């Protein structure tokens, strides 16, 4: 019975705290953008003439179909991250897209209209080399996969293996390429470096070797990089050393013919490896005899092989990019030539003659804040008058895809760099002129009474004026047709709204491109590509000056650090406009170990950034005299810590007045047993409203609110499931004192951790029970505060009381974050990113170590939920309902101007922005507030009073007459 009561109680509580999205709120405060990643392969669906699909396989292991008209996704399949989901090849034939995944481990065929899998087969182990379609009598029926030591042929219809043959002499020969011209044979090409080229021909029918030739080619080292098959089975190779082309007829010859490029009147740019590009429009037929030879970074040649003779059809210089495209029987080439610094022009040329096709010029405008064009994906189609038209996707270095239609109209752009957001910040928008005026009124208090009244009146007048202008605009817009009225967001009309709900999202991506996104609509307002970012860079974004210090512009600083060398650079910019600041950041010649923002301002209200290099020298940015003086005064109270996870060392330092440092504590975690996985402090902008918790008996349990507390997560090096463990250390970052240590036995990572207020929540995998578990640590000072006015790490004699409780979580998780509000009055929720793409908003109430096992009067008074081992996951708590976010990497939370509201951005492959109200909207009328009802009731009451008053008068009069 008690159990039943507790269950009922729990249900009641559950119902009360459930905060879900209402159906009519869909898309009102939230938006999602879906990305696929940097494109590796792209093929247009040529199956139907009117098809609007382009299929993309990306470096993020995503296979997707895009609508070419809008740039939106038809469908998308997200595979495992890492090499096991890596897409090695994409072949498209008709409605079937064949993918080779995981270094030749899986062969998959997708139905491109539905987006479902046709079949999937596991291939034998061996590293993948190459794959191609194999056709016979003009129909494509097989797909051939070349591995290091074997070749296999599979039916295209069901994936079944037709035959599998081991390659001869695979220990010495490196087989690299495969070719089929539709003549009943498959050619496998391999090389022995510095010796010869091995050619093996297999019969399609039974996999018998029909021919095996070895050709002298001591100069050849990589077939894929320097060879191509053209014409009726002629292997064309280019040798940069002797600057000549080598030709070999695969069917007949056993000797390569050398054609020096000089005989064609060509020169290769010094240091450039020439590249051959050929095209095979139909896999059941041999490739075209026309091909491209690139002899310099911007020099391409269209060559033709005509009866064993090479003919130069056209010389393209300068030409940045070239590409073949086929429609019907016509093959064309698209050539991109630079026009000026900001624009390129594209032209079509007939492939078989090299003639320029009329009216095919298309202008591609390059974004000055973007990268250079890298690849062209051309879709050619036949117009009604049988001429060739085309559309093209231009891929640039910053992973942007731009789809352009003739005559140079940009249909859509996709910023695929946003599929890999590394870090982000939300910056308040600047005030408009009127708002600034109003704010300024409260700033100065020295004025007299009269002038203040006048000022108030004038500002009210300005407000009135703005309101009238707004009304007029509304009226004006209302007369226009609805489609024309677009509230275009641009940098010019950006301003803070009354509750500061709209902010600028500054996002840093792994490719080195920075974005400024309007949080309300998701519009990209500015972008800036940093082209000198190393590939293994780590980023740290800091807001040095917010928008609150008008007329000083806001300022963000991005620390870009090379992970291997530790060398760092700073990029200082304005987060609202994206422009690089005129302030020159200091050059950092030494590797940087640590960076920290101090709560000190320079005379221009920019926060001071301290950088510690590997000589333990400290440099400040900005480093004006004023700052240095302040630093000297403050030095004795500036402490910082360093982590060396390879040696398992945590060390604390103190700043000296001469900006050198002094080691004051050191904690060594033995690396043989465990390694430090992560260290997390508290967020500096976090506010805690209440110092304690009121207990059932009206006493107060004070929280241990140490702002210097660090939570250190360690994992055991022994991964055996009986002996592995996860450790949590709570260390005071100033004194190095270990406040608490908890060990979770028979557990392993990945550990996700949130550290806030007086609690630490972490999640780990329990190897014993094979489930995910949450554990919560809460620290309390006890019933009395030691020093209630100020917290000092150096003067806290009593260790805190630590409470802990653990729960089962019925799903694995991708990321963990806590909500954050302006003043910290609102109750907290944990935002849990699940692998399914949902973001669960879990009330912190469920993770409370004081949840009782037996319900008592006092615990009921405190609103404690009775302990239940399993944590609930309810789909109503998914803040992103069906707008799943694939591969959530991080969740960013920011307070808004409303205490009840927290802004949330989840990023991973997708970006999702929404608002959450952990304690519901207590400080603002809800968006479904029924103004109609309340006003109609008011009016009804008003009229009822009037009428009844009149009636009463009449009645009194009548009675008086009686």
């Amino acid at each position, binding site marked *: 019975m008690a159990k039943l009561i507790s269950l009922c109680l729990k249900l009641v509580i559950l119902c009360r705290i459930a905060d879900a999205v209402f159906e009519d709120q869909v898309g009102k405060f939230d938006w999602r953008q879906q990305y696929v990643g940097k494109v590796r392969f792209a093929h247009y669906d040529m199956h139907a003439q009117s098809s609007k699909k382009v299929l993309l396989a990306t470096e993020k292991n995503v296979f997707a179909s895009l609508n070419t008209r809008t740039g939106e996704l038809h469908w998308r399949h997200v595979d495992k991250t890492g090499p096991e989901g890596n897409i090695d090849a994409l072949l498209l034939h008709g409605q079937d897209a064949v993918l080779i995944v995981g270094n030749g481990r899986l062969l998959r065929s997708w139905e491109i209209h539905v987006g479902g899998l046709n079949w999937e087969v596991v291939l034998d182990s061996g590293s993948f080399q190459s794959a191609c379609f194999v056709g016979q009598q003009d129909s494509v029926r097989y797909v051939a996969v070349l591995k290091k030591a074997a070749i296999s042929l599979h039916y295209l219809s069901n994936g079944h293996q037709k035959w599998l043959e081991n390659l001869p002499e695979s220990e010495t020969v490196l087989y690299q390429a495969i070719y089929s011209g539709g003549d009943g044979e498959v050619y496998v090409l391999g090389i022995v470096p510095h010796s010869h080229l091995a050619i093996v021909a297999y019969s399609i029918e039974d996999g018998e070797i029909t021919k095996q030739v070895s050709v002298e080619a001591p100069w050849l080292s990589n077939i894929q990089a320097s060879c191509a098959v053209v014409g009726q089975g002629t292997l064309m190779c280019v040798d940069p050393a002797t600057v000549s082309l080598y030709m070999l007829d695969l069917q007949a010859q056993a000797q390569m013919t050398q054609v020096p490029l000089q005989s064609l009147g060509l020169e290769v740019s010094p240091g450039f490896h020439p590249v051959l590009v050929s095209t095979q429009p139909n896999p059941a037929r041999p490739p075209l005899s026309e091909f491209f030879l690139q002899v310099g970074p911007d020099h391409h040649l269209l060559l033709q092989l005509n009866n064993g003779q090479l003919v130069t059809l056209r010389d393209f210089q300068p030409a940045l990019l070239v590409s073949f495209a086929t429609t019907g029987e016509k093959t064309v080439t698209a050539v991109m030539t630079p026009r000026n610094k900001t624009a390129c022009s594209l032209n079509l040329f007939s492939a078989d003659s090299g003639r320029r096709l009329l009216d095919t010029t298309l202008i591609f405008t390059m974004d000055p804040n973007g990268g250079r064009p890298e690849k062209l994906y051309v879709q050619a189609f036949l117009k009604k008058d049988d001429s060739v038209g085309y559309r093209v996707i231009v891929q640039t270095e910053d992973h942007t895809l731009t789809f352009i239609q003739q005559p140079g109209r940009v249909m859509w752009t996709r910023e695929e760099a946003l599929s890999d957001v590394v870090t982000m910040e939300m910056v308040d928008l600047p005030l408009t002129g009127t708002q600034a005026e109003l704010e300024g009124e409260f700033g100065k208090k020295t004025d007299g009474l009269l002038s203040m009244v006048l000022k108030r009146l004038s500002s009210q007048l300005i407000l009135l004026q703005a309101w009238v202008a707004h009304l007029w605009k509304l009226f004006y817009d209302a007369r226009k047709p609805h489609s024309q009225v677009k509230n275009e967001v641009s940098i010019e009309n950006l301003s803070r709204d009354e509750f500061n709900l709209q902010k600028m999202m500054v996002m840093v991506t792994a490719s080195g491109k920075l974005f400024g996104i309007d949080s309300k609509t998701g519009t990209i307002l500015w972008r800036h590509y940093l082209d000198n970012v190393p590939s293994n860079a780590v980023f740290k974004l800091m807001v040095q000056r917010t928008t609150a210090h008008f007329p000083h512009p806001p300022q963000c600083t991005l620390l870009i650090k090379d992970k291997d060398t530790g060398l760092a650079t700073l990029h200082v910019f304005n987060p609202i406009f994206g422009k690089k600041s005129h302030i020159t950041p200091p050059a950092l010649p030494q590797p940087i170990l640590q960076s920290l923002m101090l709560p000190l301002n320079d005379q221009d209200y920019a926060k001071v950034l301290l950088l510690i290099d590997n000589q333990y020298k400290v440099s400040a940015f900005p480093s004006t005299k004023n700052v240095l003086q302040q630093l000297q005064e403050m030095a004795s109270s500036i402490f910082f810590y360093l982590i060396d996870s390879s040696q398992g060392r945590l060390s604390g330092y103190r700043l000296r007045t001469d900006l050198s440092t002094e080691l004051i504590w050191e904690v060594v975690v033995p690396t043989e047993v465990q390694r430090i996985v992560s260290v997390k402090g508290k967020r500096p902008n976090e506010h805690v409203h209440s110092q304690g918790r009121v207990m059932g008996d009206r006493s107060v349990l004070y929280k241990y609110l140490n702002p210097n507390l660090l939570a250190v997560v360690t994992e055991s090096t022994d991964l055996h499931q009986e002996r592995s463990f996860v450790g949590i250390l709570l260390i005071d970052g100033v004194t190095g004192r270990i406040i608490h240590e908890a060990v979770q036995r028979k557990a392993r990572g990945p550990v996700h951790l949130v550290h806030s207020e007086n609690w630490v929540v972490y999640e780990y995998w329990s190897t*014993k029970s094979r489930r995910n578990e949450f554990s919560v640590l809460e620290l309390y000072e006890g019933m009395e505060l030691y020093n209630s006015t100020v917290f000092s790490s150096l003067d806290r004699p009593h260790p805190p009381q630590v409470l802990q409780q653990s729960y089962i979580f019925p799903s694995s*998780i991708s990321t963990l974050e806590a909500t954050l509000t302006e003043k910290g009055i609102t109750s907290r929720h944990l935002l849990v990113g699940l692998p399914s793409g*949902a973001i669960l908003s879990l009330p912190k109430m469920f993770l409370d170590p004081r949840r009782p096992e037996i319900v008592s009067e006092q615990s009921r008074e405190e609103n404690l939920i009775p302990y239940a081992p*399993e944590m609930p996951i309810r789909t109503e708590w998914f803040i992103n309902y069906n707008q799943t976010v694939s591969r959530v990497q991080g969740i960013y939370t920011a307070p808004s101007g409303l205490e009840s509201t927290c802004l949330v951005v989840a990023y991973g492959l997708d970006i999702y922005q929404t608002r959450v109200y952990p304690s519901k909207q207590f400080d603002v009328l809800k968006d479904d507030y029924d103004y109609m009802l309340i006003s109609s009731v008011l009016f009804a009451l008003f009229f009822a009073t009037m009428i009844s008053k009149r009636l009463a008068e009449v009645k009194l009069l009548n009675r008086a007459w009686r």
Partner: protein
Amino acid sequence: MSHRERAASAWFVVQAMLAVAFCFSDTDTGPSAGLSTQTNGDRFKIEGRAIVPGVKTQDWVWTARVLVEGEEYVGFLRTDGGFAVNDVPPGSYVVEIVTPAYKFEPVRVDITSKGKMRARLVNYIKTSEVIRQPYPLQVRSTGPHTYFMKRETWGWTDFLMNPMVMMMVLPLLIIVLLPKVVNTNDPEMRKEMEQSMNMLNPNPELPDVSEFMTKLFSGSKGSSKPGGSSKGTRPAVKRR
């Protein structure tokens, strides 16, 4: 804390049961026959089929993925709703079909080192409990996800059916209608009513609410004549 202690005491039992779970021997599982061809080293294949009753497969398969133990192994659905997750080493895994539109119950699949498979219900609390599920998996959707809360809508019926409103409306009706139904001019009736009124209000000298309020606001000294004021407030009754 106590939870952990309890868990520790239960550990031996769980371990013993786990051992049982890992070397179970069954005769009724079918797939072992077909396994000899599927083994790739020590890696196995989890197979099954997902069904959403009443919905065509092509309308939802493209949104779905099969997740094995989080995102450790990923599989995709075929156009007919079937799926296979390849390259899974022996162990015990929770297999989930994830789609934003429909709800599927997760299933735990155990694979022995010899490649024997079995499926059972997921129970995170009693991890060794075995409630058999068919293998190859047959996962049937339990319906669409409910992401949204119902708005509290306002209707006249809700208002009228409110008990407070009922309690107010019924006496009002009685007060308004009763004088019309009953003839008040009849002297006998009037006498009867007066009597019943007196019964309802046994002590006419008792202070009533309005007087209490005035007393409260004007201070305790100002009112010492409860009888007089009650007379004043109910003149109609007295006059009858």
